[in-house]
C-alpha cells in the first residue's frame, strides 16, 4: 500500500517537473551529457530508497 502511494506521488512530481527537467536536459546551451546526470541522480535515489525500504522490512 505504501509503495502504491509513493508511486502515485512520484508520478505526480514527475508530471509537474518534467517540462522543466526536460528543457534543462536538452538545452543546447548546456553540456551534452546532462541527460546522463539526471539518470545518475535517479539511480542514486533508487539506491537510497531501496536501502531504506530494506531496513523497514527487517
Amino acid at each position, binding site marked *: 500500500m505504501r509503495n502504491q502511494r509513493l508511486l502515485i506521488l512520484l508520478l505526480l512530481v514527475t508530471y509537474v517537473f518534467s517540462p522543466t527537467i526536460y528543457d534543462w536536459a*536538452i538545452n543546447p546551451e548546456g553540456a551534452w551529457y546532462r541527460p546522463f546526470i539526471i539518470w545518475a541522480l535517479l*539511480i*542514486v535515489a533508487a*539506491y537510497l530508497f531501496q536501502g531504506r*525500504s530494506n531496513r523497514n*522490512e527487517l
Partner: protein
Amino acid sequence: MSFEISDIALLGTGYLLILFGIAYCAEKGWIPKRISEHPVTYILSLGIFASAWAFYGVVDLAYQYGYGALAYYLGTGAVFLFAPMVIKPLAQLVKRFQITSLTDLLVFRYHSQTAGAIAAVCMLAAVLPLLALQIQAVTETLHILTSGSSSSSEISGYTGMPFRTVMALCYCILLAAFTILFGSSREKHNGLRVAMAFESLIKLAALLTAGFVALYGVFDGFDGLDQWLTQNPENLELLYSPIKAGESHTLLLVFLATAVAMPHVFHMSTIEAPAKNISSTLTWAFPLFLLLMALPIFPLLWAGIELGSPLSPQYFTLGVPMQMGLPILTLFIFVGGLSAATGAIVSISLSLSTMLLNQLVLPAVHLSRKRDLYRQVLWFRRVLIILIFICGYSFYKLLNNSLSLTDLALMTFIEALQFIPGIFAIAYWPSANSRGLIVGLTLGTLIWTAGLLLPALTDIQSLGILPIGVEYWDTITLLSISINIAAFIGFSMLTTTSTEERYSAELCAEDELSQPLRTILNVHTAEDFTDRLSVILGGRTADREVKRALEELNLGPKERRPYALRQLRDRIEANLSSLIGTSLASEIMDEHIPYQLPEGGGTSDINLIESRLAQYRSHLSGLAAELDNLRLYHRNTLEELPMAAVSLGHDMEILMWNQAMAQLTTIDSDSVLGSHLDDLEQPWRDLLNAFSQSPNTHLHKQQVDQAHSTRWISLHKANIVGPAANSTDGQVILLEDITDIQRLEQELVHSERLASIGRLSAGVAHEIGNPVTGIACLAQNLRYDTKNEDAIETADMILSQTDRIGRIVQSLVSFSHTGQQNKDDFILLSVRDCASEAVQLLSLQKDKNPVIFDLRLDQGLAVMGDPQRLIQVFINLLSNARDASPQGGTIIIDGQTSTQWVEIFVEDNGSGIPLEHQEKVLEPFFTSKEPGEGTGLGLSMVHSIIEEHDGQIQLTSPLPNKDNGTRVTIKLPLVPISQSNT
C-alpha cells in the same frame, strides 16, 4: 586495416570455447557459489538484454534520433526502476507456479490453450528479426575485419557460397551446440547464467574502452569534445532536432516493451531469478548497467564522424578503433560484439524453444508412455533449438542484409509491444479475459505483419490506406498498439469469462489475500495420485513426480488429509508445468485429478487463508493490519479456550483443533488440521462423526475408552453462520470433560448405599439388641437361681459375651449417626474414647492385616468436636496405617498438648508415602491402592473434617531417622480450661 580470417576464426572460436568452459565449470559447481549466485552475477546476466544491436546499432539510432536513442535504455531502465511493481508480481507468480516461459504465464492467467498457441507463434515472428540482427551483426563485422584479406575470398571460392553465408552458418552451428549442451535441461541453468554474466562483462568492458578511446584518443577529453561540438554545431543539432519530431516518444513506448515482453529478458529476469529476492537491488543496479552501456554512444558517434569512417554509423563502434589504427582494440571490440550477439541468440533460442514446446509441440503430439518422459521432452527441446537456429538463419538469408540493424530491432520490439496489454493485465486487471487477449494480440500482429514484415520480405510497397514499410514504423506502432488495446479492453468487457479463468485471474491478481475456495478432490491418498497419473505419464514418471512433490512438501506417502492432498496436487501441477508447460500440465491434472466444487456452495479454505496471512503479515499496514490483529485475537481466544473445541467444514474437514482438544485427545493439531473426520483416530472418529450428524445439539455423558483410562465427555455443537443469509459454514463442537464429576457421582451413589446399610444396621442392631437383652436377663436369672459353680461361670461368660454384643451394636448404631454439622453443637469429648471406638470397629474386620493398635493417648486429652466425625477420622487414618503396615506391625496412637493445640499422632512403620505423592494424597480421588481397593476419598475426607474442626493435618514420611513409616499429625484447637471445666 585487415585481418586474416584464420586469426579471427581462431579468436572467435577461442572466445566461444572460454564461454563454454565457464558454463561447464559453473554447471559442475567448480565456480564458488558466492560468485555464481552473487546479485552482481544475476544483474550482469540480465545484460543479455543489450544484444549486438545495443553494441553496434544504437550508434546508428543516435545518429538518426539524437537523444531519442536514449529511450532504448530509459524505457527499459524505467521498467527495472519500478521492478517491485512491474517485475516482482510476475516473478512471484513464476516461482509459485513453476512457470517456465512468458507464454506459459499467459496460458496460466488466461486459461486458454489457443491464446498460448497464438502467443507462441507471434513471439516466434517477433524474435526472427532479432535473431537475424545478431547473425547479421556478427557476419558484417567479420566481413569488415577481413574484407581486404585473400583468405575470405578463398573460402567463398572453396565452398561456392558467399563469405558472409559461410560465416553465418558456422556461427549458428557453434551456438546451437552450445545452447543444446547448457540450456536444454529441465533444471535451472546455473552454467548458462554465469556464462551470460561473463559475456555481459566483456561487452561492457569493450564498449567502455571504445568510448574512452573515442573521447580521449580523438577529442582529448571532455574539453576537446566541447570545443569540437562548438566548432561543428550541426553535430550538436543532431542531438536535439529529431526529438522534437515526436518519434522519440514512440521509441520510449517501444523500448518499454523490451524489458518485459522479450522472451529472453523475461526468462532471465523472472525464471532464472535467484531464490533470494533481489528485486530491490535490481531497481538501481540494472539502470546503472544501462547507464554505463549508454555513456559511450555519443562520443563514438562523433568520433566516427570526426575520423571520417567509411563505415555506416551502425558499425562506428568497430570503425573508430580501426580508423585510429588500433588492431588489438579492434579485435577486443569485435569480441565484445560477438559476445553481445552470442548472449542474445543463446537466450532467445532457449526461451523460445520452451514456448514452442509447451504451446505447440506437446499439445499436438502424444508422448509415449513406455519411454522416459524426461528424455522425450529433452529431445523435443533439442530439435526445437536446432529448428529455431534454422529459422533465424533462413530469415537472415531471406532478408539478405537489406535492412539495417535499427530496422530489424524496431521490427522485433514493435511486435513484442503487442504483448504488453496482456502482460500488464496479469497482475493488475483481473477482468481481462482470453478472448480480449486473442483478438487484441491477433489484430496488433496482423497490422505489424502487413506494415513491417511483408514489405521487408516482399516487394509490396503499399496496402491501401495503410502506410507500410519500416520508414513508417512510428505510425504502424501507434496504430497496432491502439487497436490491440482497444480490442483487448472491449472484448474483455463484452464477453463472459469462464469460472476457471476467473479463478486463475484471482490467483494472479496482486491482491494475494483474495478468498480461495476450498475445492474437493476425489482422491484419498497420495498413492492414488501415482495410480491416476501413471495412466498418462507412465508408471515410472508418475512415481518420480509424486515422490518429488511429496518430498518438497515434507509429506509422507500415506498422507490422507484433503488439505495436504490439495497442496500435493498443486505442487505436482507446478512441477509438471516446468517440464511440459502450463497448459498441458493443467490439462492432465484437470482430466485425471480434477477439482470439484463442494455441493451446496463453496467453503473458504480457512487453512490456506491462514497460512497465506501468516506469510503476508509483515506486509500489512493500516486497516488490514488491524483486522489481522483482530483475527489473531479471536484465533488465540479459541486456541487458548480451556475447553476442547473443534470446527468442521461442510465436507467434514477439520478446520480448527484447539490446544485443549489436543490435550484431551492427545492428538496434535498439526497432524489433524485439514484432514477428514473419517481419518481421525478412534474413539474420537465415531464419537464426533455420530454427533456432528445427529440432530441433537447436546449429547451428555458419553463414555470414551482410551488406552489407559476411561473418560466421560459431554458434547455441544452449534452451526457457524455463513456470509450469505440463512447459510451455514460448517459447525463448531465443544467437548466438555466431565470425568471428575462422573466419578464424584459414582462415589456419591456408593456412599449413599453405604449410608443406607448404616441405617439398616441401626435397625438390625435394635432388633438384635432385644433378644440379646433377653438372653442377658435369662443369664442373670440363671446366675441368681443356681448355686452350681459351673452354671454361674457359664452365666458370667454369657453375660460378658452379651455385653460385648451390646457394645458392638452400640458402636454400629453410633457410627451410623450422621453426626453434627453445626459447630455450635460440638461437644467436649475425649480423644482417647473416639480412638478406642475406632480401634474397636476396625478390629471387627477380621479379614484384614492383623496389627497391634497401641493406644497411648491420655484419657484427659479433650477437644471440642463431633464424636462421630472424629471417629470417622480415626477409622480412615488407622485403616490406612493398617493397610500400609507389615503383618503384625504396631500402630501407635499418641498425643500431647502444646500452647495452642492438642496434637494427635498416628504412626506406623509401613512402607511410607513416596515424596511425589505426598502433595496429592489429600486431593479427592487420589489413591495408590489397586482399583477397587480404595476410593481415594479417605484422606480427603479426613482433611475436610479436620478443617471443619479448625484444625490442621500434617504428613511426615518417612519417620525422622528412619527409612520408612508414616506419621500423620492432627492438630486440633486446645479447649480453654474454663470451658473444659464446665
